[in-house]
């Protein structure tokens, strides 16, 4: 988007449109040229700031906008006079275009005996109004015509050119040029230059050289007006960091015919304001412009727009935009495209032009759609379910940046560890890594909340981490679920970190259960320097890494300056989606009651619940339905190095009510097994 500044009175010179300023702004805006601002000048004019989209370089000049206004309001267009007197002298300079592909047209006019001075006030005011600085009359006129015709011009001091020669060529390696703004450019053959017999004197389409610029003592000038290949100008401008009014227009394509018209207009103005005498001939090298003809099928137009426009209406709109209807064949118009509409090259471009002038808001709105139903994807269903659960469990969802700085903590996660992808052009030095874990950012968010007066938070993020793959251009984008959990500050009771660890483990188990994941989960110890070794672990689901969880290690707590110790977890969400079973199947409710028996045993510290559970299951009891852990106790009545574990066992038979004696005997068998295998002592 380019903001083009023009003034109301200037525009009015070329099109007598009979609209108030406000109406003008509305009309232009509704045709796609958004008037973003309007303000008064000291001399009673108004500056309009118009957003011009990058496909309309013709509207980067007052005349281009005048053409639009004329088309929109059916008012006549009044182009400025182009005629000028000529003298007896001829152009002595020879012009050679060595790269016609890169410079399709090059024109030059010579004006002898100009008097360089300041421009008249009206000219200075107009330039200042549109944001240009007045310099001297000749340079100001080239800028004025640029703003008028959207055609960049350049005036050389003729006497500074060596050898009466202009060559449009590729620069040679080792050549240099200092441009008007003082930039020193080292050139190479990729750069198109304007050269005289000795050296480059301008970067084609971008900026002239300092040596040959027009100055106070200039007497004779050579006025260049040309068309250069957009990509060439773009590359040169980019290479030297010289984005100019000229380069911007050349990059988007200037009007093949406008090259000559603008040259004549500028010459006429120079003669008028700086005196001198124009050479009687002029130079024009390059291709002749041929009017492009594009076919427009009316039925096609109406299919795309959903309209029923007739030939007359379409022809009228195109005519107003200076398109020429060359031929009408049945439902088809052969449309000649004016030279200044380089953006129109195919049928769809004409469709858009018709729609634009007809008015998008006049196209009938159609809400009749065929019925199409798509079920929600697994991904969506799982996401919704998990988000619902986490909200219910008190978690707020965070969204953090995918681009992070590289630091130690970036290795905390389930999948981090390898070299991250890096951005070549980061906004801030050092902040260039695509994250491989969500946990670093959650810790930062925790810190921010701590600073903002919320000492305890429960946060989660459900987002991607980016894992580069050797030999592949694109990384694996893995969706992970990151959790940061702390029990809220309560006046009644404060949960210890150890309990937080079990709560987070419970959350993971709860998610698996809510998602119907029945596969085998294996919890194992984990070596992670960022997690407290006593309270951290890793989970595998059917052998695949599923989650890492643990209390933040002391180092992390210090590094982030946290005043409480959060429990962290990172879960492979893609794996959850893959394994989720969201169908529910009804199981008949049991007909007969269960009998419960509680058992409390004292075992060595080293004995795990997993061992106890498997020992119970291994006892081969027919009616064992469920084992439920309910208490872990150390302290009074339990010898040091031991712990007391209590659990409840449910027995049930499918076809009858169990007798008490059966449950008691089963309990006895279990206790026997526990004593034998784990050295358990029963607490009565």
């Amino acid at each position, binding site marked *: 988007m380019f903001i083009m500044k023009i003034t109301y009175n200037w525009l009015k010179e070329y099109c007598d449109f009979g609209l108030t300023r406000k109406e003008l702004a509305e009309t232009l805006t509704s*045709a*796609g040229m*958004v008037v973003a601002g309007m303000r008064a000048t000291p001399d009673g004019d108004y500056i309009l700031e118009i957003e011009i989209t*990058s*496909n*309309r370089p013709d509207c980067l000049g007052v005349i281009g906008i005048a053409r639009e206004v004329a088309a929109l309001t059916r008012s006549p267009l009044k182009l400025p006079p182009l005629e000028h007197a000529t003298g007896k002298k001829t152009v002595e300079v020879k012009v050679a275009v060595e790269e016609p592909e890169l410079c399709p047209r090059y024109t030059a006019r010579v004006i002898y005996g100009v008097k360089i001075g300041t421009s008249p006030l009206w000219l200075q005011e107009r330039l200042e109004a549109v944001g240009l600085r007045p310099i001297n009359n000749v340079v100001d006129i080239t800028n004025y015509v640029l703003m008028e015709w959207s055609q960049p011009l350049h005036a050389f001091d003729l006497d500074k050119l060596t050898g009466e020669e202009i060559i449009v060529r590729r620069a040679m390696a080792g050549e240099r040029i200092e441009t008007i703004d003082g930039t020193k450019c080292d050139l190479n053959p990729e750069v198109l230059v304007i050269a005289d017999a000795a050296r480059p004197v301008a970067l084609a389409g971008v900026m002239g050289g300092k040596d040959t610029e027009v100055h106070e003592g200039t007497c004779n000038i050579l006025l260049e007006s040309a068309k250069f290949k*957009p*990509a060439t100008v*773009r590359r040169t401008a980019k290479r030297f960091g010289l984005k100019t009014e000229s380069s911007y227009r050349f*990059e*988007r394509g200037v009007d093949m015919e406008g090259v000559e018209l603008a040259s004549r207009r500028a010459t006429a103005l120079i003669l008028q304001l700086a005196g001198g005498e124009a050479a009687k001939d002029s130079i024009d090298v390059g291709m002749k412009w041929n009017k492009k003809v594009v076919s427009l099928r009316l039925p096609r137009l109406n*299919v*795309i*727009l959903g309209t029923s426009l007739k030939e007359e209406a379409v022809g009228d709109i195109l005519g107003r935009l200076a398109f020429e209807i060359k031929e009408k064949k049945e439902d088809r118009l052969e449309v000649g495209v004016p030279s200044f509409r380089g953006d129109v090259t*195919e049928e*769809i471009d004409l469709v*858009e032009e018709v*729609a634009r002038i007809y008015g*998008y*808001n006049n*196209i*009938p709105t*159609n809400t009749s*759609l*065929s*019925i*199409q*139903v798509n079920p*929600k994807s697994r991904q969506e269903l799982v996401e919704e379910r998990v988000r619902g659960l986490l*909200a*219910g*469990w*008190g978690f*707020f*969802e*965070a*969204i*953090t*940046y*995918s*681009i992070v700085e590289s630091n130690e903590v970036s290795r905390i996660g389930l999948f981090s560890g390898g070299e991250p*992808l890096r*951005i*070549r*052009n*980061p906004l801030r030095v050092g902040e260039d890594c*695509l994250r491989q874990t969500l946990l670093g950012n959650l810790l930062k*968010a925790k810190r*921010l*909340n701590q600073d*903002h007066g*919320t000492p305890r*938070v*429960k*946060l989660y993020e459900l987002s*991607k981490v*980016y894992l580069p793959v050797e030999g592949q*251009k694109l*990384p694996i984008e893995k969706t992970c679920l990151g959790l940061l959990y702390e029990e*809220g500050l309560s006046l009644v009771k404060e949960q210890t970190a150890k309990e937080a660890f079990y709560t987070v483990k419970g959350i993971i188990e709860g998610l698996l259960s809510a998602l119907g994941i029945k596969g085998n989960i294996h919890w194992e110890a984990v070596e992670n320097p960022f997690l407290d070794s006593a309270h951290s672990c890793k989970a595998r689901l059917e052998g695949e890494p599923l989650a890492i969880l643990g209390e933040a290690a002391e180092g992390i707590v210090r590094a982030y300056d946290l005043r409480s110790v959060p429990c962290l977890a990172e879960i492979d969400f893609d794996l959850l989606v893959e394994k989720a079973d969201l169908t529910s199947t009804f199981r008949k409710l049991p007909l007969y009651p269960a009998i419960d028996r509680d058992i409390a045993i004292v075992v060595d510290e080293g004995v795990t619940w997993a061992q106890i559970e498997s020992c119970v299951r291994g006892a081969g009891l027919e009616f064992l339905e469920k084992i439920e852990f309910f208490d872990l106790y150390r302290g009074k009545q339990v010898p040091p190095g031991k712990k007391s574990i209590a659990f409840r066992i449910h027995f049930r038979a499918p076809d009858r009510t169990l007798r008490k004696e059966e449950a008691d005997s089963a309990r006895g068998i279990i206790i026997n097994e526990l004593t034998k295998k784990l050295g358990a002592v029963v607490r009565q």
Partner: protein
Amino acid sequence: MKQALLELREKALQELKSALEKRSAEELEHFRVKYLGRKGLLSEYLSKLPTLSPEERPAIGKLVNEIKGELTGGFEEAKASLERPKVVAPLTDISLPGCLPSIGRSHPLVQTIQDIKDIFARMGFQVVSGPEVELEYFNFESLNIPPDHPSRDDFDTFYISDDVLLRSQTSTVQIRVMQKQKAPIRIIAPGKVFRPDTVDARHSFMFHQIEGLMVEEGVNFGHLKGVLHIFAQTYFGPDTRMRFRPSFFPFTEPSAEVEISCTLCKGHGCSVCGGSGWIEILGAGMVHPNVFKAVGYDPEQYTGFAFGMGVERIAMLKYGIDDIRLFFENDVRFLSQF
């Protein structure tokens, strides 16, 4: 007689109540003597029983005994109550705040995406996603933005390598879907996009877009207007007006910038809409034939439209949020508002 007994009961209960209210042991004793004493009123009635007819006798006798029981009970209770020191029973203070396990929320951007998805899903649009780290081809070439094309200036982009970048628009998903799937197509693709914009209250280098695409034989600009109208009126309210103006995107033609009547001032002009009464909410257009060609669709057979909107912008409008950075700070004082 029955009537007289009932009246006596009524009177006795009142006297008992009054004695209790005054916490007067004296009155209570007086009550006992008057009604329950050996020479009390009830005894008097009992002594009259033999004078009644045999038919009447059992019923009246029963009634007297019932009343006697009731009054004796009341008296005992009142006596006990008078003997206890007066204490105020613990009262439930119903003005104390309720007790609820703390609950969290989805992120406001996620909620916004969800709301928008729901509306389009009802019109048959399927939710899809695509990679955030993308090949340049999907971000540019296939979307009718050739290398060195000046319109690339409109899309500043983070690069990983020469041909790998962080997508600067979700339009990439259009191409990926059409490469795999045949028409008809109705998709909606929410996701993150990245542009090297310096962060301020209005800009973020990472933000969210929702891309929509519908391709079907006979789909036209009128349908584009229709679908977006339905969306705007469902999301922003039934009074919402919408207008389209020409714009330019390389991958759609005709292209449109879509505005809705300001949600705050209803079109009268305010600071949110810059006084114009209108707010830009999305870009849209008919899929460019070159895009169809890039994915092997016949542009003569199929037409389609695409649209894209910035989620942050819409959420900011909907909730009146004035700083885009709040979305990514994750301050729970902010997150808990939605």
